[in-house]
């Protein structure tokens, strides 16, 4: 064992180190001490409670950075599915020819799509309103979690203080008993 202590010249450090090493080795040989146990103890880290002053409130800008700016405007969906120009004329004539046949069948896909999209477009303002509501709920929930965390930390600190007081009371009780023993009679 490399000496890890220094002392006055009159003290034989080498001899102390040898004695310590022997005792430790004897304990290891007897299975009373394991190197892994010592390492584990040495490496144990303290786990401090969080400081509730350091827990920030989370407000909307933090939760939704650039939400409003980046929100895409509703697409002009109706226009997107409209045929234009030559295609429009050809399709119209073609549909006109087929109309007597297809009138008894289900509606064509493009009509279904168009109807669905128009319905969705009507719902856009409602969805936007709902998203606003979700944002508010999200904010509220975050802040409630922050407050709950703070309260939890505070509770832990108060528990610690109570434990100190309990120890103090126990000590004072012991002290009282010791004092009573010292009193004459």
């Amino acid at each position, binding site marked *: *064992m*490399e000496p*890890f*202590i*220094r*002392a*006055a*010249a*009159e*003290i034989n450090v080498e001899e*102390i180190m040898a*004695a*310590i090493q022997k*005792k*430790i080795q004897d*304990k290891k040989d007897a299975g*009373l*001490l394991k190197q892994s146990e*010592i390492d584990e*103890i*040495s490496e*144990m880290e*303290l*786990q*401090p*409670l969080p*400081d509730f*002053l*350091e827990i920030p409130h989370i407000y909307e800008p933090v939760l939704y950075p650039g939400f409003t700016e980046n929100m895409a405007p509703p697409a002009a969906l109706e226009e997107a599915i409209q045929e234009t120009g030559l295609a429009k004329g050809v399709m119209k004539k073609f549909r006109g020819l087929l109309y007597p046949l297809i009138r008894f069948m289900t509606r064509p896909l493009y009509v279904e799509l168009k109807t669905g999209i128009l319905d969705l477009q009507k719902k856009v303002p409602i969805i936007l309103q709902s998203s606003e509501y979700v944002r508010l709920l999200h904010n509220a929930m975050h802040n409630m979690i922050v407050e709950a965390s703070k309260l939890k930390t505070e509770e*832990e*600190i108060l528990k*610690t*203080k109570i*434990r*100190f007081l309990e*120890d*103090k009371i126990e*000590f004072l009780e*012991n*002290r009282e008993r*010791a*004092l009573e*023993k*010292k009193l004459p009679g």
Partner: protein
Amino acid sequence: MNVHQFLTSYSYGDAIGNEALEIRDFLRSQGIGSEIFTLHFHPRYANQVRNYLEYDRFSAPANTVIYHFSIGSPVTKRFLRLRDRKVIIYHNITPYQFFLDYHRILAKDCFKGRLELKSLAGQVDLALGDSEYNRRELVAAGFKETGVLPLVMDFAKFDLPVLPVFREMFADGKTNILFVGRIIPNKKVEDVIKTFHLYQAHFNPESRLFIVGEYRGFERYVSALRELIAGLGVRDIHFSGHVPLAEMVSYAKLSHLYLHLSEHEGFCAPVLESFHLGIPVVAFDAGAVGETMNHGGVLVVRKDLLGVAGVCHEILSRPELKAAVLAGQEKALEKYLRPRTGKILLDNLRRLLP
């Protein structure tokens, strides 16, 4: 010539406050007028100190003002504006990193303190460190005129009897190990606890650890220490909190060994108090500790916790080794006796006279 002192905080039992009081009494005994001015003070000392803002009434170019510097505070700004001769006694500033997890305000003040120290360089007539370690930091910060003034301590005040109640409670045949100091992260109380656990588990089950010192403001640190104690399953650890001097002396006199594993110290007064009280000291060589121990006690240069527990056991189980350690400590203490430190103080003050 009057020599007044400035300090940021005067707490009860605090080494810096005690030194200020010792210096004041010593200077008065030499016929030199001396008062203490402070920003914060313990109510117990309300009749001993004055508010630092009152100093304007006392200020004069012929006076000398000693500023005990250990943390960033508004006192520094006021001190710099004085027309008196200026001396600082640097007690060192704990690196702010130690407090980041536990006390962000103190971390900020410590960080600010290091900046203020640099701003004081070139603005004072003399900068004293209470150890060579501190003096070297002053030189590194840019101070030209520097010196060493060991902490002025009155050891006689520790010559008190053990309280009978304490004897009844703790003189029960168990081996008592002592740690004294504020329960703050740089003191590495967790290492003291771990070492004590190894000592108790592998060398002496009949043992007890006294942790004597203020912990208010650091409840989260103490809470983490308690979790550690529970995790290790170690027993017989007694946190006393802040205690009056008579109780502190009782704890010390009932202890068989003093264990200090702090990782930052600008001086480390408890080591010398233990020297005076005849308790063998095992301390980790961090900051100025090695220098303060002055070849007395046992200095740990590497934190091998089981090894340290073994060293404690060797000292406690071998009377001839304990006697040799105590003899070394007694010799080491001579450097810090009040007549000697008082003379160093006066010599330094004379350096300022035209």
